[in-house]
């Protein structure tokens, strides 16, 4: 295999790995702090994606004016649809806003996802901390279905495209920088953005947990919830905030993923199962493990879908994630970086 082909697959794996890592990060935060198996986490990713769609539609709401000077083919005055944003801010700014609707949706998604996260934790999840895992699975699965159906009722069942800003459409030729022929190692701009964005979010979450008192308490709570509770620290309130943050991370991952994969209401479930595998392969209770496993599995998946690899081992592209998951779990009982005693019984 040529070096450029190798590098291309690494790059291709990065964006999927980023999405896995971001979802798994939130999942493992909730696992680790609240001890809750959250099957609705994929739905949060999906809602994030639909935040992007919502913002795109809001910005495109138009006023209809009649242009008497022109007529359509029936001879009536021509109807011109002008988005309000163009009316208010002028044509160039307005068009820019619409063009940038996906990144702008982040600003919309953060408060929405935080609110949804808080509401979910306070209204529902809170009551299930002491219930068996089976009850948690049923209630969060039920919630996921309900959220999916609500989105389906409003947005329909089809995939809805939400393009990246036009400035990021097209590809970046990595190859020429490092001496390959032009065109051998190209990578879409938006995927670079997605990867950098994911790295930024991951770094922010880690920094938050590492360098703030709040984060310190949460990490202590992940290690030993009861003791922290005994110290008289109100761990519950912090966990609510943690849930909101996990929801926001999943939501932002969803927003930014829309240009890569137009969302429909099932996108969350599709990601959820693999994210569970990612969390467990990374090791329960380990944030670093979740991120590491997300990227490893994303990149391996990308390699396995290469033509040469499929020809050598038929079907490998379908099973590689699961095969690697099995091998890692058999070699390392608690995943890559897991701690003893977390979710083992």
């Amino acid at each position, binding site marked *: 295999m040529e070096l450029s082909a190798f590098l291309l697959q690494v790059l291709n794996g990065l964006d999927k790995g980023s999405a896995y890592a971001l979802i798994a990060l939130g999942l493992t935060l909730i696992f680790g702090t609240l001890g809750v*198996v959250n099957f609705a986490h994929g739905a949060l990713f999906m809602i994030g994606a639909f935040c992007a769609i919502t913002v795109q539609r809001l910005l495109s709401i138009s006023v209809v004016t009649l242009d008497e000077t022109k007529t359509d083919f029936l001879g009536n005055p021509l109807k011109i649809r002008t988005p309000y944003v163009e009316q208010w801010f002028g044509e160039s700014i307005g068009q820019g806003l619409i063009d940038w609707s996906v990144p702008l949706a982040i600003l919309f998604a953060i408060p929405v996802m935080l609110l949804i996260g808080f509401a979910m934790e306070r209204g*529902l999840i809170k*009551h299930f901390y002491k*219930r*068996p*895992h*089976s*009850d948690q*699975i*049923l*209630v969060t*699965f*039920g*919630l*996921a*279905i*309900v959220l*999916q*159906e*609500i989105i389906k*009722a409003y947005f329909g069942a089809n995939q809805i495209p939400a393009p990246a800003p036009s400035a990021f459409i097209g590809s970046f030729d990595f190859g020429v920088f490092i001496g390959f022929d032009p065109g051998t190692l190209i990578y879409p701009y938006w995927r670079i953005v997605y990867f950098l964005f994911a790295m930024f979010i991951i770094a922010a979450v880690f920094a938050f947990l590492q360098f703030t008192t709040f984060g310190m308490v949460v990490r202590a709570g992940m290690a030993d919830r009861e003791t922290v509770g005994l110290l008289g620290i109100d761990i519950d309130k912090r966990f609510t905030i943690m849930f909101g943050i996990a929801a926001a991370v999943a939501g932002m991952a969803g927003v930014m993923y829309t240009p890569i994969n137009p969302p429909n209401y099932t996108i969350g479930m599709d990601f959820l*199962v693999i994210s*569970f*595998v990612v969390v*467990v*392969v990374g090791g*329960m209770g380990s944030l670093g493990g979740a991120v590491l496993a997300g990227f490893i599995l994303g990149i391996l998946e990308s390699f396995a879908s290469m033509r040469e690899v499929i020809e050598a081992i*038929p*079907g490998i592209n*379908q*099973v590689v*994630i*699961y*095969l690697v*998951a*099995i091998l890692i*779990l*058999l070699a390392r*009982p*608690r*995943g890559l970086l897991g701690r003893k005693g977390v*979710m*083992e*019984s």
Partner: protein
Amino acid sequence: MLGLSRNDFLMLLFVLVLVAAAPIILNPFPEGSNFAQFNAGYPDLMQRFVIFGIFAIGFNILFGLTGYLSFGHAAFLGAGSYAGVWMLKLLTINVIPAIIISTVVAGIFSLFIGFISLRRSGIYFSILTLAFAQMSFALAASVLTPITGGETGLQTALNDPRVLDGGATGGNIPAPSLFGLEMGHSWKVAVGDWIWTFNVGYYLCAFVLLIVFYIAIRIFRSPFGMMLKAIKSNSQRLSYTGISPRPYTLAAFVISGMYAGLAGGLMVAMDPLAGPERMQWTASGEVVLMSILGGVGTLVGPVLGAGIIKYFENIFSKINDGLLHQWFSFMPDGIENVIVGIIHPFVGKGWHLSLGLMFMLVVIFLPGGLVGGINGLFRRLFRRRSQ
């Protein structure tokens, strides 16, 4: 009686009466009435109730007793289905060998997967089973196409060898039968406006259900069953009392895998067709939900959970606006439209919404599932009857 305590025997009798009379009980509304839509007493759906009931009973022997949550049991159902279709193709169109081989093949397959997966516990075990099942699903849909028929699935064909039957007979693909009695054969009995359908396939499934339900009761009440409960309670402690938990969990895993294979065999006996989607994680997740909804660790719960989910899937999904308007046509138009508008999102294509809401309501108000929750309610109402 039959080695059961009085209460257990009564429970078995109760289930016997229910499944025997199901074609009557599930058709409470006269044919052609407004609510005939809610009748579930047609063979196809009743077979599904019973087959998924068997699947869930078996799953509950593993999950309910040992607490090991497998997310890959659909793989055994799928493997059983494929094995069953091959028996119908190669050996005979009689369903008995197909059902037996389905169970055996699923048993061997689960022994292999269980042996590896049970090296881990908790969520690590769940993910291992999920991974094995997803691999089986992907391979069945792609590489194993010569054995599984790929994405289109495997079915009986006119030119199948059927060694015992003597090969191709007429112009039609023979239908699965029990010594010549076709599974699809039904007797219809009309009583007044009611029509009851007594179907051969259904009664074969119901007979099998009774047997495996009886076996499940025996397992629950055996020393073996007690050890499984002890594993769920405190598996570490069990090893300090001189018991090795591994062979017990493996035995439970294989038993539940065989139940799944049996369910798969019955499926192909009813409809000689098997596809890879039967192995997908959604199918594994469904049986998990059935068990939890009905009541984990209870005997009747899983059957109840299976019935309810299948009822929603088949009945609620078929209610459309036309039917709704018909039902509420006695009301003034304005009110009729409002009511239809309110119900509309929950039925037809929106049946998933009702299902999701029901999951949440059940688990919020009835901890321990339907059976567990109802038991709890009764206990609170009649405090003195503590047992």
